[in-house]
């Protein structure tokens, strides 16, 4: 059986913005290639403005002005040898055929996306009726079960969103995204702004649900610690490019790309007071990204080739891909 579930092929996209009568293109996602498998948690890590949330939007087929697709495909593998390019579908079709059933999305700051005028249970009932064809009584049982697992009492089904705390709303959004048992769950910073104890509970539940459903979870977070606790494989993004992909253990124990190495060594850790050093400089303006490797202006190992040539993502070691000219050469 084919264990591919999503193939991201040469994907480029970004934002068209008008400034002083000129049209600028912000090159947020540039030539991304990833194969994502069934039954895995894939993490996308990177700092603010690296394009990780934009990538997630493209995977969801949520392309709305000013976001545009430059090129590439997002191929959903429905069965062996049959691929459906999400980006080739019309918005209406994606909404009807793909969302909730195949892919669900937990957007950033999602605690604010609930409709304030309808009760919690109606959020669930609508989705369950439309996408799962489940009727009221059965749906009600399912809702209570999900909420119970997330530590929420069954009384809150009758509450309106504003009556709940941010952490509770966040849990409801996550329950909504999972209750239709989608093949792929996209989560954009699912626990940012939550307390660590609540965060731990939610991440544990996400991990538990993923193992139960054996589906695919793609988690975007700037926080490398969250990836260390949850992701099986990780893609590191910098300035719109994927610079390194491998299993979690490889990323944390023997990172190969200079950016990943520097990023990890800048993290303070409990029990370790040794001097940590940040990365000099700032990420580039993605309207005019640097030529060659996009990290070269900040890279301490930069050689002439890095300035001229854009490195491809290549397999440096088994299942360990990086985009760095110095490693390719080895």
């Amino acid at each position: 059986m084919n264990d591919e579930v999503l193939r991201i092929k040469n994907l480029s996209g970004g934002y068209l913005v008008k400034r002083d009568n000129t049209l600028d293109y912000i090159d947020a996602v540039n030539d991304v290639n990833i194969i994502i498998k069934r039954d895995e948690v894939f993490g996308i890590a990177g700092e603010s403005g690296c394009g990780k949330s934009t990538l997630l939007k493209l995977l969801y087929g949520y392309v709305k002005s000013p976001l545009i697709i430059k090129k590439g495909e997002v191929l959903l593998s429905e069965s062996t040898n049959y691929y459906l390019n999400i980006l080739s579908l019309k918005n209406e079709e994606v909404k009807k055929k793909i969302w909730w059933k195949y892919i669900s999305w937990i957007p950033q700051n999602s605690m604010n996306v609930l409709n304030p005028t309808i009760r919690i249970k109606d959020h669930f009932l609508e989705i369950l009726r439309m996408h799962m064809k489940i009727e009221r009584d059965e749906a009600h049982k399912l809702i209570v079960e999900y909420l119970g697992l997330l530590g929420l009492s069954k009384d809150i089904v009758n509450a309106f969103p504003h009556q709940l705390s941010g952490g509770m709303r966040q849990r409801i959004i996550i329950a909504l995204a999972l209750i239709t048992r989608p093949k792929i769950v996209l989560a954009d910073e699912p626990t940012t702004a939550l307390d660590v104890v609540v965060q731990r509970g939610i991440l544990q539940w996400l991990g538990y649900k993923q193992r139960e459903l054996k589906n695919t979870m793609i988690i975007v977070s700037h926080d490398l610690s969250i990836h260390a606790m949850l992701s099986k494989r990780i893609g590191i993004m910098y300035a719109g490019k994927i610079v390194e992909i491998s299993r979690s253990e490889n990323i944390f124990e023997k990172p190969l790309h200079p950016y990943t190495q520097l990023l990890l060594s800048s993290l303070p850790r409990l029990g370790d007071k040794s001097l940590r050093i940040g990365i000099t400089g700032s990420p580039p303006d993605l309207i005019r990204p640097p030529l060659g490797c996009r990290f070269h202006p900040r890279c301490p190992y930069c050689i002439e080739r890095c300035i001229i040539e854009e490195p491809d993502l290549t397999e440096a070691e088994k299942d360990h891909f990086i985009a760095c000219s110095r490693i390719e050469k080895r």
Partner: protein
Amino acid sequence: MDNKNTAQLLVLKNINKVFRYGFFGFEFKALDKVNLTIEHEGIIYTIAGESGSGKTTLARIILGVHKPDEGLVEYKGKNIHSLKSSEARWFRREVQAIFQDPYATFNPMKKVYSYLYETVRSFLGFHDESEINEYINSRLLSIGLKLDDVKEKYPHEFSGGELQRIAIAKSLLTMPKLIIADEPVSMLDASFRINILNLFKDLKRRYNISFLYITHDLATAYYISDFIAILYRGTIVERGPTEDILRNPLHPYTQILLDSLPEPDPKKRDKYMKPLKLSEIEEKEFTVQGCKFSFRCSYSNEKCLQTRPPEILINNRVISCWLYHYK
């Protein structure tokens, strides 16, 4: 100001702060009997707490923005909520603040330089423009910035990390002895964050400045601070040397907090994933008579619910928990 060399730098004595809201005047105790002392200059003291712990309220009380309902804040022996006007100027020179969002610190329509200029002119009494510029430049240089790179720019022309550096430079202009830093790095990316923390350490070493570092992030607290107080729902549950408290937490809340900290190390995954039951944050935690953590604590009993635990001194730390009473 005669006793300013002998008195402790900052003392918080039994601080209570109640916010009232709603038609029936629902009372909400933001801070409940908080005691804390920064003995002298050159100390980084962390106040660690999650959202709703009262840490920002505490910062505001120390800065004189809010008045406590009960209790006393003394800076170098003086009650900061009853300063005479000349003393108030002295206090504002000596105690500076840095906030979470550097973009909110500066007016987006004004060049950041105008803030630096005004601070020097009004607080230090410099009048000559070249003198002022020279002074600003020397301060900027001390933290790795140049006046020429800053002078003509507006806030949005800097990255968050750079602008936070400028906010720090601004706070240094008055040669403060104490800087209150409220979540100063939580909006910055990891690669900038550590530079700012290193700067704090460096300023402590070079100028003997003390910091009150307010954060929710225990890893950064461990990295820079000498002492730490763990705040929970307005009460300090445990305080003492950072090394002791974070390496060997005694209060059940500190223990849960540390256990729940995700770490950048996949080897710790199994421990992190050991199931934890999610519970609800309850409003009654703020109003409970006894220990605020007793609803969630696995050791709690009737006494914990009824009576507030006293402050118990164990070695170098102070802990508020009945588990350690008479031990």
